[in-house]
C-alpha cells in the first residue's frame, strides 16, 4: 500500500545512529541524498514543542562552505544578491545565488567572521550544484559589466567545511523555541537570549562530556566558562582565549521555524553527537524534544518561510520578488551575477507567493502541492506550493495572481486526482490559471508571514 523509497545510495549524517535509536525504520527516509528521520514521536507533537518549549533538529546534512581571502567579500558580492559589505564580524545575512539568467540556484545564509573570512550555509539538496557553480565562477576571469575591471577570484580559498579532517570543520544543529536560550544556558552557563537575530557568537566552552577530567584549566572543580571569541562585533584576541580544553561552538540566532527565539549551533562533526546528547539531557526538564523533517516542514510553512524547489525556483521558476524577498536583492550593488535579468524580474511578475488557511485537518482531505487555487467565481488563479496541517487548520503557501493576495480574501481549492479512481471519475491531474472549476473546499488568504 505504500511505495517505500529506495534508500540504497543515501548517506548517513553524523547523527544517524541517534535517529535510528529514537525512531522506527519506516520513519527514516531519503532526503536530498541523506537518511533523515521524518519524525520521532509525531509531527504534531514536535511542531507543538517548537511553539511551546523547544525542538532539536539535525541540520548536519546542510552544506557548509568556508570562503576566505583578500577578495572574499568581492567574490561573495558577485556571487550573491545581498550586500556582503553590510556584514560585520558576528553578523549573518540571507541571500540568493543566481545564474546569469537570474534564476535561483539556491538560497543561502552567509556568516561573517572577518572581511576576509566567511561561512556560507546552503541547502543539502543543492550542495553539489552550488559547489559546481562556485568552481565554474571562480575559474573565470570575467568582466561583469563594461564599467568594472575584470574580476579575478584567484586570491580566495573555498573549502567544504563539513570535511571532518579540517580542524575548523562545522556542521549545523538547530534548537528552536521559547526555552532554547534557557537550555543553552544550562549547557554553556551563558545567556544567549540577548543575541539579536542574524547575529552569532563564537565560543570556546568546556567539553560537553558531562564529567570532564580535571585539568589545569579547571579551578578547584569549576568548569571553564564559555569565552566569546566574537562579542559586540569585535574579535577577542586569540591570546586571551586561555582554555586548553574546550569545544569551539558557533551560536547563531538564526533558524528556519519562525520561532522568535532559536539558535543554530555549528560544531566540528566529531562533536555533533555529544552536542546532540547534551542538549537533550539539559533540555529534558524543559521539554526539549528531537524533531524530524515533517515538523521542520510544517513549522516553516506556518511561518511563511520558503523552501527551494517549492516557493523558490521549482516548477514555476519563482523569483525572490515573487517569494516576498525583494529586500535580499540589492539592485543598487554595482554588479552581481544575474543582476541584469533580475532587474526585469523585479517589476515583471504577475503571480506571487501567498499564505492561505483552510479549515480542519481530521476528516478533510489534505491539500497538496499543485492543487488549484480558485477565486470566488471558481476560476483558477494559481497553485499550491506547500501545505501542512497545523492544529485544526491547513496552512499553505501558494503562487497566485497578485491581485488576489489580500488578507481575508476568500479562495477555494480544487484537489487534483490522487489516483486512477479519481481520474476515472473525471478529476483532473493538472489545472492551469484561467480554468473554470468547482471548489472542493473554501479558505482564505492570510498574512504572508506569521508573527510569533
Amino acid at each position, binding site marked *: 500500500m505504500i511505495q517505500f523509497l529506495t534508500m540504497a545510495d543515501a548517506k548517513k549524517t553524523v547523527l544517524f545512529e541517534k535517529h535510528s535509536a529514537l525512531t522506527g525504520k519506516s520513519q527514516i527516509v531519503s532526503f536530498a541524498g541523506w537518511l533523515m528521520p521524518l519524525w520521532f514521536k509525531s509531527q504534531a507533537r514536535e511542531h507543538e514543542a517548537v511553539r511551546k518549549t523547544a525542538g532539536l533538529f539535525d541540520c548536519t546534512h546542510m552544506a557548509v562552505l568556508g570562503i576566505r581571502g583578500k577578495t572574499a567579500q568581492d567574490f561573495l558580492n558577485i556571487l550573491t544578491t545581498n550586500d556582503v559589505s553590510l556584514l560585520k564580524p558576528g553578523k549573518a545575512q540571507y541571500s540568493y545565488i543566481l545564474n546569469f539568467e537570474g534564476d535561483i540556484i539556491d538560497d543561502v545564509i552567509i556568516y561573517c567572521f572577518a572581511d576576509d573570512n566567511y561561512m556560507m550555509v546552503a541547502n543539502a539538496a543543492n550542495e553539489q550544484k552550488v559547489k559546481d557553480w562556485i568552481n565554474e565562477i571562480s575559474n573565470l576571469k570575467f568582466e561583469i559589466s563594461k564599467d568594472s575591471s575584470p574580476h579575478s577570484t584567484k586570491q580566495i580559498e573555498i573549502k567544504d567545511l563539513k570535511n571532518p579532517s579540517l580542524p575548523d570543520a562545522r556542521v549545523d544543529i538547530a534548537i528552536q523555541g521559547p526555552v532554547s536560550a534557557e537550555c543553552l544556558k544550562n549547557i554553556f552557563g551563558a545567556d544567549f537570549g540577548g543575541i539579536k537575530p542574524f547575529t552569532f557568537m563564537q565560543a570556546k566552552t568546556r567539553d560537553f562530556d558531562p564529567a570532564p577530567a580535571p585539568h589545569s584549566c579547571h579551578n578547584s572543580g569549576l568548569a571553564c566558562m564559555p569565552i566569546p571569541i566574537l562579542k559586540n562585533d569585535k574579535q577577542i584576541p586569540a591570546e586571551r582565549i586561555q582554555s586548553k580544553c574546550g569545544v569551539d561552538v558557533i551560536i547563531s540566532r538564526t533558524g528556519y521555524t519562525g520561532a522568535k527565539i532559536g539558535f543554530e549551533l555549528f560544531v566540528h562533526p566529531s562533536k555533533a553527537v555529544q552536542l546532540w546528547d547534551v542538549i537533550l539531557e539539559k533540555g529534558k526538564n524543559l521539554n526539549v524534544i528531537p524533531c524530524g523533517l*515533517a515538523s521542520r516542514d510544517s513549522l516553516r510553512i506556518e511561518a511563511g518561510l520558503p523552501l527551494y524547489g517549492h516557493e523558490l525556483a521549482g516548477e514555476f521558476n519563482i523569483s525572490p520578488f515573487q517569494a516576498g524577498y525583494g529586500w535580499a536583492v540589492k539592485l543598487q550593488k554595482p554588479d552581481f551575477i544575474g543582476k541584469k535579468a533580475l532587474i526585469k524580474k523585479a517589476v515583471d511578475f504577475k503571480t506571487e507567493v501567498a499564505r492561505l488557511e483552510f479549515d480542519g485537518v*481530521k476528516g478533510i482531505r*489534505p491539500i497538496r502541492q499543485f492543487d488549484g487555487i480558485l477565486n470566488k467565481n471558481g476560476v483558477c488563479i494559481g497553485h499550491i506550493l506547500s501545505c501542512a496541517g497545523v492544529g485544526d487548520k491547513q496552512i499553505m503557501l501558494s503562487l497566485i495572481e497578485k491581485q488576489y493576495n489580500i488578507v481575508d480574501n476568500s479562495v477555494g481549492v480544487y484537489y487534483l486526482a*490522487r489516483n486512477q479512481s479519481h481520474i476515472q471519475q473525471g478529476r483532473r491531474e493538472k489545472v492551469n490559471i484561467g480554468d473554470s472549476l468547482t471548489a472542493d473546499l473554501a479558505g482564505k488568504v492570510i498574512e504572508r508571514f506569521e508573527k510569533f
Partner: protein
Amino acid sequence: MFPENLYYTKDHEWAEISGNIAAVGITDYAQIALGEITFVELPAVNKQVGVHDILATAESSKAASDIYSPLTGQVTEVNNELSSKPELINQDCYKAGWICKIKISNPADKDKLMTVKEYEKYLGTL
C-alpha cells in the same frame, strides 16, 4: 506480533475471513509508516472490486496511500466512523480501524494471501 487469524498482502492490507465475508484493513506496519492519518476515502457500498483494485485511500502528511483489495468481490459495508475519526486506523488498526467488508466471489483468491508467518518473514526482507 501480528494477529494470527488474519491473512496479509505485500501491500500491508489484512483480511479477516468468515465464510464468504472478509473484513479488510491495513496492518500496524502500514499505520506506523503512514503517521497520523487525517483522512480516509472509503469505497461506495456495492462497489465491485478485483484483487489489487484500489479499495480506499488513507492520507497523512507523509503520503496519500492507496489501499488495495486483497480479494475479488463486492463491498457490502464500510466503516463510516473513519470519515470523522480517521485516527482509528492508527489507534486500533485490526478492530475499530476496519475499513470495509467484502462479499467474496472468488474464494481461490485466499490462497494467494500470506499467513501471519509468511507476512512476518516478508517484513524482515523490507
